[in-house]
């Protein structure tokens, strides 16, 4: 109760990492050191040097440039699939939590059905039925996170619905839409934010996994997951390729995890 709004150290580390990566993505929109797809056959698998900070890959493409462009895909997929998941999760969770009764039953059984498949398997299934590509990856990963969001939003709704101010507003004649958006939503933003941040890192990891299997983002769109796969055969001859790519994915996931944990800690302190 008397805690100042002091942010934790992990929160700051997380925020810094995420900001740096985001900055890198922004820069890549206008500038990359080399054309990410330009092959230099005379400089294949070059070691990191001043010329190529992260070295080059098996086709002689600049890894830093590809890394930067890959971050666009990572953020695009992360943001879009979290949005997709959040949108449907909110719809289902809000209905279930707010109205309760048989609507709740119906929604939750649907979520149970979704949860019956492990998320990544569901995504693989969706992608093989349709076709690989950014759009379907986003949809598949979004669907994967729907159950988590729906459950968190449902329970927050049920909790907040109990409060007297919601009842009092209802007694003043307020409709459902008013109550949901003016009373309930502002009070459950932080748990949703935490869930979204943590889900973001999960999505990035899943995308890397899918692309590694060749099911995610297709060439020529760059993707960290696919870069990792491409680096694999050269693990002995050009270890930096694997290390740099792996580190990048780890950093991104770590950053978002720390950020999510930090937000949660703060919220726990406040209550």
């Amino acid at each position, binding site marked *: 109760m008397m805690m100042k709004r002091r942010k934790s150290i992990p929160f700051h580390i997380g925020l810094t990492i995420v900001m740096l990566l985001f900055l890198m993505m922004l820069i890549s929109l206008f500038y990359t050191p080399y054309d990410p797809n330009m092959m230099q056959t005379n400089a294949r698998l070059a070691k990191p040097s001043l010329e190529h900070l992260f070295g080059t890959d098996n086709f002689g493409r600049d890894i830093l440039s590809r890394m930067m462009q890959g971050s666009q895909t990572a953020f695009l997929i992360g943001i879009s699939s979290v949005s997709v998941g959040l949108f449907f999760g909110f719809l289902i969770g809000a209905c279930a939590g707010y109205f309760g009764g048989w609507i709740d039953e119906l929604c939750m059984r649907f979520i149970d059905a979704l949860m019956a498949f492990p998320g990544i398997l569901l995504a693989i299934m969706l992608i093989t039925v349709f076709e690989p590509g950014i759009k379907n990856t986003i949809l598949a990963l979004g669907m994967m996170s729907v159950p988590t969001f729906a459950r968190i939003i449902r329970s927050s709704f049920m909790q907040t619905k109990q409060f007297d101010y919601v009842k*009092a*507003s209802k007694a003043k004649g307020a409709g459902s839409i008013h109550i949901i958006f003016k009373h309930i939503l502002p009070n459950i933003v932080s748990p949703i934010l935490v869930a979204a941040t943590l889900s973001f890192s999960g999505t990035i990891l899943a995308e890397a996994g899918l692309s590694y299997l060749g099911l995610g983002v297709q060439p020529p769109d760059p993707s960290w997951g696919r870069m990792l796969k491409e680096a694999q055969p050269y693990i002995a001859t050009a270890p930096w390729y694997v290390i740099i790519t792996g580190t990048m994915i780890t950093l991104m996931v770590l950053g978002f995890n720390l950020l999510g944990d930090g937000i949660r800690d703060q919220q726990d302190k406040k209550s």
Partner: protein
Amino acid sequence: MIEVKNLYKYYHMPRKKFFSKETSIKAVNGVSFTLRKGETFGLVGESGSGKSTTGEIIVQLIKQTSGQVLYKGKDVSKFNALQLKVWRRKVQIVFQDPYASLNPKKTVQWILREPLIIHKIGNRREQDKRIIDMLHDVGLDESFLKRYPHELSGGQRQRVVIAAALILHPEFVVIDEGVSALDVSVQAQILNLLKALQKKYRLTYLFISHDLNVVQYFCDRIAVMYLGEIVEMGTVSDLDEPKHPYTKALFSSIPTRDVNTSETVLSGEVPSASAIPEGCPFHTRCPFVQERCKHEKPVKHELTTEHTVRCHLYD
């Protein structure tokens, strides 16, 4: 003004085993009373007596299983959406916990404006004026407009809650344990405020409370509930000499400064509302229990036109 007739509210519990009988909780079990314009009607009872449920049914936050709530002869549970919205302007509810009654993310001004927006009353300037007038009425001033609930003390919060309830100028307010969570000195402030507002706006109060001292001080008429039924009802002075054994026991268990009062301590506890005893619901704890109480439900006796009691002792 408002007439409650034979109100019942049952909750069905999910079966524990597939073949077991469905159990139901009888929260309100045939309650009838009338509220007169300008009076304060007290509803007292222990937890689980159904007093709050009755209050929430009257403002239609929950629907009754059967029975009627009549406003000017019309049944409010049969109102359509439009009629219900009009009804909601006339009746308000104030809850116990001033910490849970205000949305923590909204300013006092927003909270007070909300009902006006819902009912599309006035333009922005008229709303502002009404909000400030209301704040003055409850003993606060303009400096509170921009504050958030967590910046207020318990008493100030309850004042805001009352302002938000009265800003629509209702005729009738249900006060559900509205002062129970407050310190004595603050409670006295709020009770005085409620009395003053009642005079100014000619309000009718349904005052639900477990605090018998407060009810005896504040109300004009009192109904005592036990397990979903009104066992005794009368003017506050009628109840100074209670007739029903439960009312007697209840009022004598108020701890007082006199230590050696020969109080009737009731043995046992209130039975569960899912297993209400047959016959008179109070017979399991009644010191004057007779054989017939266990089978026959007592009827309502009118001792005077005001004072009714439901007990076989008065047959």
